[in-house]
């Protein structure tokens, strides 16, 4: 089968396609051919494919409507498997050999749609469907959801890892030009000639915009010639970056814009050589928005039948792709410019059935030109209804009153297979709107223009409502000159001489066409094609009392599709305005937000995926832990050993063994991740005294003190030990997760409130390796590797620290304990960490030294009732709630941070939740952390919550479960029984006990 045969709508000559490069592709499983230079949409039209999708709600057959980003119907999924991409517009997909596409909706397929046959959908989903359903009984949504998901999905996300890579590049430039049509190119050229750094981006496959199919002459030569010369000149500047296939999809604060560049999507689905897409994050000093305009369709009954297209799109397909998408055309317009489409169609050798013009007396040059070619022009008429189902078969055409509000005679049927519709043009105000500028309605251009923004940007050309080439070039040049001048360059203006342009006569403001029946009873008059919003739906919303355009949008779902209402929103607003008897200016627009077109997650994520997603932090002993078979857990960015299972052990076995080893012999923990802040300065003690609840002024060198920090609201914020290293020199330990936050906390108070205090903070967390040797045999272990510290219990007491040498390495040894056992925390410079760790293991071997992880650490500290900030506290507990009144000094003269709040009535009331222990009646029951606590076993629901379990473990040492909990008034309720109803239906009884389960006197750590 020859290529010509499959491409029945391809013209013999013309277009910008490369006929020597035939490409084969499939759509919905069927094979077709096209040419290099085609888009998927132009190739489908060339092959005469009418139905490309099904509508969301009514499941109506839909065809290609546009030639650009505004396409609502031809939404496709490319490829399959890992690299598949959903929700692309066929109009923006460059054709490549082997391309595989399918419609994203339609069940079981687009040509035979079951939901349509059931005729189930539409009637079940009136405007406000979602609102009414969500506000209604829950079961209703469950019922509908099944059908909605099945019938009208919008593509399928890939289920496996994306095989491609994506790049990110940060860029700076003087002038960013968005859009490479005549205005954008003139702007870029003017700016580039001044030496300014310029980036020009365009979403299409090639630069040129309207010049790619223009009949005008610029400076005496064809537009295409000027385009080629201009592109060649721009390419010569080293200061100019030209980005085709690049969509500027977001415009953010302070002239920060994001561009998604499709690097290889025009070659193949996936790219094994380089990045598939690249995001440019551009900080521009000046921005020129030359992003063009989108044609507005007219709204009439059944205006969604395949074969109804935008007039400009029809011209684009004929001129750029040599595709005339039908045999007989009716052009329906309210303006002059659309007449060009009739002329193009006529020139392609196919029949123009008629031009239907809503205006009674159009006089423009193009009107004359069409008449001169023998094209039949029906003035003062309107297409009011389309005939046909899967393809246009004809149009009902009726005479229209001069103001367009009513029909003045009988409708008659005209046969055709294509209807080109033009209701005027909407400047692309989206990017301007991203800046917060409110679009302004302009009666003259019958459209919204970009509003005034606070950023250094300007809109030119069609984006500003200027549609003739001469003015576009002039505006573009002027904007480029001004932008360059604003960047400190000196620039001169260029003037362009444009000939062959046809002047356009006045257009008519016309949006919704009347029908023989009232809007509510007429066949669907579609406004938003993607979400099946009709004129009747918008009028219904108005009747139901919605007057704000933002509310109507949400009630009808107009503009909620992936096309964000690029095609239909302005029509919808006009229809609403008329229904509310107000002007369009009074009605206003909804707000456009990024992204301009959908952007794939891969592009946004860039290289920040997999192991590069977040940094991982390891201690110096990491490899030893790995070799010892440790299981790891994440603590912030740190990887910490969780437990060290021996062969055949599960987690419970390993943790039980580790716990008993510490209690009976000796254990060793890598505590290097604890935050460490070095604090120096003559006012260091005064500063510590202000941020801690307890006194620090008298902490002597060689001594350590446990402290709690509160927020100004009186709630526990972090805890840890601070040691006095020498005069005016301290080392503060923080929780592993809290380290960065604590440093910020110290800095902000120092810098903003007490800058007069002479004190300095340095994070030294990573400088040290900390090995905690703990258990009854700890002293014996340390004694073997350290000879220059007197380890005698009276000489080196609990809460002392000493400088010394451990295994030949200068060390600081702290007698602080998180296990309740005799403990030495050995700190050595991180470079020697592994060495010292191994020496400690070696020295401890004869005493049964056992490495343990965070889980054992948690169990041991829970046995002692030591809290973990962030687990047993949640930002709503005071030291008193934690039964730690002893840590709050009442004697300090300075009102330490949080002190005043402890006197607030809410902090002093009774029945605050307080930290207690829980012992389950069955010692083998381990309560789940987070379990809620109630007073009665069979309390009627909703039962009054008394608190919740914060920590819960099985204690091998005590041979029973233990739990910490916060319970209302708990400290006065010791001995009472409470109940934990669990998700699985069980109710577990527990007794409130002291939060210290083991060695309440603290004798074991004080030896």
């Amino acid at each position, binding site marked *: 089968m020859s290529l010509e045969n499959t491409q029945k709508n391809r013209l013999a000559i013309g277009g910008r396609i490369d006929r020597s490069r035939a490409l084969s592709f499939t759509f919905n499983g069927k094979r077709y051919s096209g040419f290099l230079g085609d888009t998927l949409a132009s190739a489908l039209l060339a092959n005469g494919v009418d139905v490309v999708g099904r509508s969301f709600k009514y499941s109506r057959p839909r065809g290609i409507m546009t030639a650009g980003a505004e396409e609502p119907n031809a939404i496709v999924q490319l490829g399959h498997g890992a690299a598949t991409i959903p929700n692309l517009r066929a109009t923006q997909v460059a054709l490549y050999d082997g391309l595989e596409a399918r419609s994203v909706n339609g069940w079981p397929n687009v040509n035979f749609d079951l939901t349509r046959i059931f005729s189930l959908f539409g009637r079940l989903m009136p405007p406000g469907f979602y609102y009414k359903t969500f506000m209604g009984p829950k079961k209703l949504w469950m019922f509908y959801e099944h059908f909605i998901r099945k019938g009208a999905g919008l593509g399928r996300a890939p289920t496996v890892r994306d095989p491609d890579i994506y790049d990110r590049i940060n860029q700076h430039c003087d002038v960013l030009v968005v859009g490479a049509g005549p205005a954008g190119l003139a702007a870029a050229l003017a700016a580039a000639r001044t030496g300014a750094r310029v980036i020009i981006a365009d979403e299409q496959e090639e630069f040129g915009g309207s010049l790619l199919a223009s009949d005008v002459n610029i400076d005496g030569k064809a537009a295409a010639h000027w385009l080629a010369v201009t592109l060649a000149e721009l390419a010569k500047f080293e200061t100019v970056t030209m980005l085709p296939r690049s969509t500027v999809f977001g415009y*953010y*604060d*302070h*002239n*920060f814009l994001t561009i998604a560049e499709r690097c290889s999507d025009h070659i193949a689905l996936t790219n094994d050589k380089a990045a598939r897409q690249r995001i440019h994050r551009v*900080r521009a000093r000046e921005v020129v928005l030359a992003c063009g305009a989108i044609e507005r369709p007219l709204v009439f009954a059944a205006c969604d039948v395949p074969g109804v297209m935008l007039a400009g799109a029809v011209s684009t397909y004929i001129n750029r792709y040599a595709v005339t998408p039908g045999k007989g055309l009716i052009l329906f317009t309210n303006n002059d410019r659309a007449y060009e489409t009739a002329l193009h169609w006529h020139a392609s050798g196919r029949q123009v059935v008629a031009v239907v013009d809503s205006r009674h007396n159009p006089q423009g040059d193009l009107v004359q030109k069409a008449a001169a070619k023998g094209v039949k022009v029906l003035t003062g008429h309107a297409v009011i209804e389309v005939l046909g189902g899967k393809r246009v078969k004809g149009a009902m055409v009726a005479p229209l009153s001069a103001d367009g509000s009513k029909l003045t005679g009988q409708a008659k049927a005209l046969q055709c297979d294509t209807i080109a519709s033009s209701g005027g043009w909407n400047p692309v105000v989206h990017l301007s709107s991203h800046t*917060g500028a409110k679009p302004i309605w302009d009666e003259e251009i019958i459209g919204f223009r970009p509003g*005034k923004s*606070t950023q250094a940007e300007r809109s030119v050309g069609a984006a500003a409502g200027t549609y003739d080439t001469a003015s576009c070039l002039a505006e573009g040049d002027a904007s480029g000159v001004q932008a360059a001048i604003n960047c400190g360059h000196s620039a001169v203006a260029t003037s362009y001489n444009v000939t062959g342009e046809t002047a356009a006569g006045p257009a008519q403001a016309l949006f919704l066409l009347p029908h023989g029946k009232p809007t509510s009873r007429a066949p669907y008059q579609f406004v938003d094609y993607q979400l099946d919003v009709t004129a009747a739906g918008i009028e219904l919303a108005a009747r139901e009392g919605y007057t704000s355009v933002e509310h109507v949008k949400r009630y009808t779902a107009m503009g909620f599709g992936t096309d964000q209402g690029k095609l239909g929103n302005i029509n919808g607003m006009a229809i609403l305005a008329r229904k509310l008897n107000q002007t369009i200016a009074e009605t206003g627009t909804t707000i456009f937000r990024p992204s301009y077109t959908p952007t794939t997650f891969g592009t946004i994520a860039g290289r920040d995926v997999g192991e590069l997603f977040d940094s991982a932090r390891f201690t110096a002993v990491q490899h030893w832990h790995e070799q010892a078979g440790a299981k790891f857990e994440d603590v912030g960015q740190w990887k910490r050993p969780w437990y060290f299972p021996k062969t055949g052990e599960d987690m419970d076995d390993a943790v039980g063994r580790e716990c008993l080893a510490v209690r009976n012999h000796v254990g060793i923990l890598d505590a290097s991740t604890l935050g460490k802040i070095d604090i120096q300065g003559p006012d260091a003690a005064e500063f510590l005294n202000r941020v801690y609840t307890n006194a620090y002024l008298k902490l002597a060198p060689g001594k350590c003190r446990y402290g709690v920090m509160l927020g*100004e*609201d009186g709630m526990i914020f972090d805890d840890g030990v601070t040691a006095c290293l020498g005069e005016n020199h301290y080392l503060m330990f923080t929780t592993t997760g809290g380290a960065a936050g604590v440093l*910020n906390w110290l*800095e*902000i108070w120092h*810098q*903003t*409130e007490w*800058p007069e205090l002479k004190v300095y903070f340095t994070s030294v967390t990573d400088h040290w390796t900390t090995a905690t040797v703990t258990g009854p045999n700890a002293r014996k272990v340390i004694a073997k590797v350290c000879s220059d510290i007197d380890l005698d219990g009276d000489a080196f007491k609990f809460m002392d620290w000493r400088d010394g040498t451990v295994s030949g390495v200068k060390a600081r040894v702290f007698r602080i304990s998180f296990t309740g056992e005799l403990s030495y925390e050995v700190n050595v410079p991180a470079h020697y960490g592994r060495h010292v760790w191994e020496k400690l293991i070696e020295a401890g071997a004869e005493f049964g030294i056992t490495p343990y992880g965070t889980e054992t650490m948690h169990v041991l500290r829970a046995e002692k009732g030591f809290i973990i900030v962030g687990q047993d506290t949640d930002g709503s507990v005071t030291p008193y709630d934690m039964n730690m009144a002893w840590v709050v000094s009442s004697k300090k003269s300075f*009102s330490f941070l949080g*002190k*005043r*709040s402890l*006197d*607030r*009535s809410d902090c002093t009331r009774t029945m605050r939740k307080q930290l207690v222990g829980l012992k389950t009646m069955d010692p083998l029951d381990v309560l789940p952390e987070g379990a809620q606590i109630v007073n009665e076993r069979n309390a009627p629901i909703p039962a009054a919550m008394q608190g919740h379990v914060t920590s819960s473990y099985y204690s091998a040492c005590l041979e029973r479960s233990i739990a910490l909990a916060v319970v209302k008034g708990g400290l006065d309720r010791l001995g009472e029984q409470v109940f934990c109803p669990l998700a699985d239906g069980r109710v577990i009884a527990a007794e409130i006990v002291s939060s210290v389960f083991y060695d309440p006197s603290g004798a074991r750590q004080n030896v």
Partner: protein
Amino acid sequence: MLKIHCPYCDEQREEEEFSYSGEAHISRPLDPGALSDADWADYLFFRKNTRGWHHEMWQHSAGCRRYFNVTRHTVTYEIFESYPMGTTPKALPKGDAR
């Protein structure tokens, strides 16, 4: 994304380098114990929530790590000035930023 001038580094840098730190010019009462619950709550919880020019603290957290003040418009996000801790802001531009 904002472009912020750090008055200590004297450079325009990307917002990614900075952390927001709330309303500026809220002084900690010198004698908290002397305050009524209501006055203390006012210091502790209540902020202006300004629509318009707003003095706020930022920290150059991925830079010099110092805190400074910024006068920013909460509607347009324009930044009028940044200035070091302990200094007073300039008189605000008249009217709305737009």
